[in-house]
């Protein structure tokens, strides 16, 4: 049953992604002020949401690992963190591409930008720690500690950079805060977000399988070494 779902999911997501691409590039109207560059927004927002979601999965996996000490929770945590970093990098790449023509600057110190950047840094450090530890249970334990602490820091980082900005004069503002989207644009976003979320689920399940296979290989290697 579980395997079946895993096989079916990509076939569900593929048409969804094609539909999302159609909605984004053809169905949604061109933004009167920003022009075509605004179309980056749909995927940018979707990836940002899923990037955040994956760190939440990492947080859950980390807590559960410390409580239960079961390998599967560590597998969830590492898989989610890795995909999260990839998605965050997509967010941090698409953002400036959009910002340059619209805001007139590649980068601004907007709270959301700061939070995402710091988030990426924290999970990059998380992966660095994982790579530096060979012993499996120790790696899982140390990583879980970082995963929990890093996630707790997200709201505080957002709050701090938000207060920092509101006290500073705003040089550049994104279209007055609330977007006021065209209904067709909202519809496009409503398709893009599930499409990307499903992509995340597929990647997560695959990545977790991969980690399981690595364990199996390591086990077999040990067995062979013993016999030899």
């Amino acid at each position, binding site marked *: 049953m579980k395997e079946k779902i895993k096989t079916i999911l990509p076939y569900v997501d593929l048409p969804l992604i094609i539909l999302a691409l159609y909605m984004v590039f053809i169905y949604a109207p061109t933004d009167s002020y920003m022009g075509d560059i605004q179309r980056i927004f749909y995927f940018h927002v979707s990836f940002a949401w899923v990037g955040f979601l994956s760190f939440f999965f990492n947080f859950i996996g980390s807590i559960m690992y410390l409580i239960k000490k079961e390998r599967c929770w560590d597998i969830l945590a590492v898989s989610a963190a890795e995909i999260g970093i990839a998605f965050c990098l997509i967010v941090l790449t698409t953002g400036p591409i959009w910002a340059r023509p619209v805001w007139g600057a590649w980068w601004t110190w907007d709270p959301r930008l700061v939070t995402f950047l710091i988030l990426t*840094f*924290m999970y990059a450090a998380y992966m660095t720690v994982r790579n530096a*530890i060979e012993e499996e249970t120790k790696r899982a334990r140390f990583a879980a500690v970082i995963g*929990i*602490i890093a996630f707790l820091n997200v709201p505080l980082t957002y709050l*701090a950079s938000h*207060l920092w900005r509101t006290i500073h004069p705003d040089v550049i503002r994104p279209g007055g805060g609330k977007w006021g989207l065209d209904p067709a644009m909202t519809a496009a976003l409503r398709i893009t977000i599930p499409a990307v979320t499903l992509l995340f689920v597929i990647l997560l399940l695959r990545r977790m399988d991969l980690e399981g296979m690595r364990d199996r290989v390591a086990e077999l290697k040990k067995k062979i070494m013993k016999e030899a």
Partner: protein
Amino acid sequence: MGYYLKKVFLIAAKDLRIEFRSKEKIYSMMLFSLLVMVIFNFAFEPGAEYIKDVAPGILWVAFIFAASLGLSRSFVLEKEEDCMQGLMLSPLDRSGIYLGKLIGNFIFTLAIELISLPFFAIFFNLSLTSSLPPLMIVIVLATFGFITVGTLFSALSVGIRGGDMILPLLLFPMQVPVIISAVKSTGLIMAGSGMDTYSQWLKLLVAFDIIFFVASFVIFEYLIEE
């Protein structure tokens, strides 16, 4: 409870005694924070008016860098000669070890900061006497916040190969809320603004301190179980 705290203070006192006797860490942290201030000075025009605007940032960069230098050594002593085993065998909760280490690191870092502060005032021609009491509140709150997570990650980094390289990578992104709050409130205090202008920053620092003190206190025992 009193028994527990007594043991905790024993660990803190032991750490402080080692540091104040060997003086090795005091000198290097002191010199390091002074050097940061001096080097940063070269980045700006001498005697420029805007130096007052960037001074708080320089102060905190110096403090945070010096503190992280100290933190990277915090658990190294315990690792040598297997002192950690001794601590773990002592009739004290694992969380007590964290608390003792935290208090030791906190007092030590605070001492370094207080010694560097007059030098900062001299180098940047600032009169800090009138703003000293509120500034002290910020220094205590921000240093505590830095040390809560710092002590936890310091214990973590000694257990990893190349740990002293990794510690700043873990620590600096974690400290963004502390650094922003400390720099902003220090700037407002030095400009002579009233309490109401920076109270939100103090609140944020208190929130950070509480959240990460509790989280690190609970999590610490998972780090050293071997």
